[in-house]
């Protein structure tokens, strides 16, 4: 993508292309661990969805449907906030595959 020169930029850091973060795959920041969704324990309270800083909780219909790993940074907030006795989201180790990440 061609980057604008300083003259082409909108005044005052205004970014008219709102929502452009969709191209920034924050999932590439994840290192060493990732959340794993265990639907059998999920009560669909949406706490994980509410707390996730990167909108990485997938929703289908009106139910939690898993994790979008393109944007999940592996921060663990969802697992921390999950209120069920048997957690519906648990953090598990993740092997980093640099070659895949660079794709």
């Amino acid at each position, binding site marked *: 993508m061609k*980057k*604008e*020169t*300083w*003259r082409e*930029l*909108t*005044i*005052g*850091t*205004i*970014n*008219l292309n*709102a*929502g452009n973060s969709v191209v920034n795959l924050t999932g590439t920041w994840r290192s060493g661990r990732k959340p794993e969704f265990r639907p059998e324990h999920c009560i669909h309270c949406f706490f994980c969805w509410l707390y996730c800083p990167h909108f990485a909780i997938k929703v289908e219909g009106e139910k939690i449907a898993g994790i979008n790993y393109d944007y999940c940074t592996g921060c663990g907030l969802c697992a921390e906030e999950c209120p069920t006795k048997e957690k519906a989201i648990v953090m598990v180790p993740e092997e980093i595959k640099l070659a895949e990440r660079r794709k």
Partner: protein
Amino acid sequence: MKTLKPLNGNQSIAEAARQIDPDVIAAYPITPSTAVVETIAQFKADGLITGEFVCPESEHSAMSVCIGAAAAGGRVMTATSSQGLALMWEMLYIAAGLRLPIVAAIANRALSAPINIHGDHSDTMGARDSGWIQIYSENCQEAYDNFIQAFRIAEHPDVRTPVLVGFDGFIISHSTEIVEVEDDEEVRQFVGEYLPLYPLLDTSRRFTVGPIDFTDYYFEHKRNQIEGIENSPRIIEQVGQEFGQRFGRYYGFIDAYRLEDAELAIVVMGSAAGTCKDAIDELREEGLKIGLLKPRVFRPFPHEIIAKALKDKLAVAVLDRSSSPGAFGAPLFNEIRSALYDYEKRPKIINYIYGLGGRDIKIEHFKEAAQNLVKIATTGRIDSYVGYLNLRE
């Protein structure tokens, strides 16, 4: 119709604020600018202004409110001094970076430590690289006039840069003068309607204000910001002329007093320029060809105008009401010496630091500087580049 009113500097600013009636005024009172905020609060209580008056928990928050309100699309002002301006520091850069035309009245005051409430320019000089336009006033009338012009300058589409108007703490802020106060309607017409470019309250467009920039965009955005203040000299000039045409008091970048035929010159900014004019008159009577140059605008620095006015002098003393510890002289001296570098014929130039913490500067001190200039002009020798006036040695 214009009226003559006895006002001190703070009241002059408050009077201008009442006439302009900005959408949002956010300020945290601090000596010596307290009365600006206090008087505006009274105006609000009396129903004389319609704008929102916000009194947050600190100056940092006051400037944050200004930034939010300006980003929302409002015409916004604040007032502060010294530590208050220092506490606003990080927000000053954000206001400038976001190109929000906020106007701030600064009753100039010394910075701690030691704690001191009196006038010097340390506070605004500390903000000199924040990206704000800086205009300094010599008296209450200038404070009033500069404050009105500041909105026009800040809000011009080619500028869109915050402006601060400095007026010396106590010497101007608390001294009463007869001020020509213009007609409310005339002032409103002069300032005109403010049209924000990207108001956040306009929900018909989607955009982001203040996103993060990494190494690939920060530099371009900063260069884009610099363009605003680079565009401002033309607008400052134009606004000063228009102000003169409407109200009879013309403004430019500098004020020259008996400078044209002078061989020696003193440069001084703010209230001390008034005393200096008296000193110049006395020295002229004693036969010395000396004049005064008073810069009105410090940012953008009018380097060409000042250099042209000084280049043919024999010797020049630049007086700074702030210090820049460890630097080669204080800010005004740095700028002026640098501005003269490209001229083959240029004066000998020295720096005096004066008036820190409100220390008086009297006619005799200007004369002391003048005597040194005579010596330098005669011998061509400078004993010391940086001196101190009215300091116990």
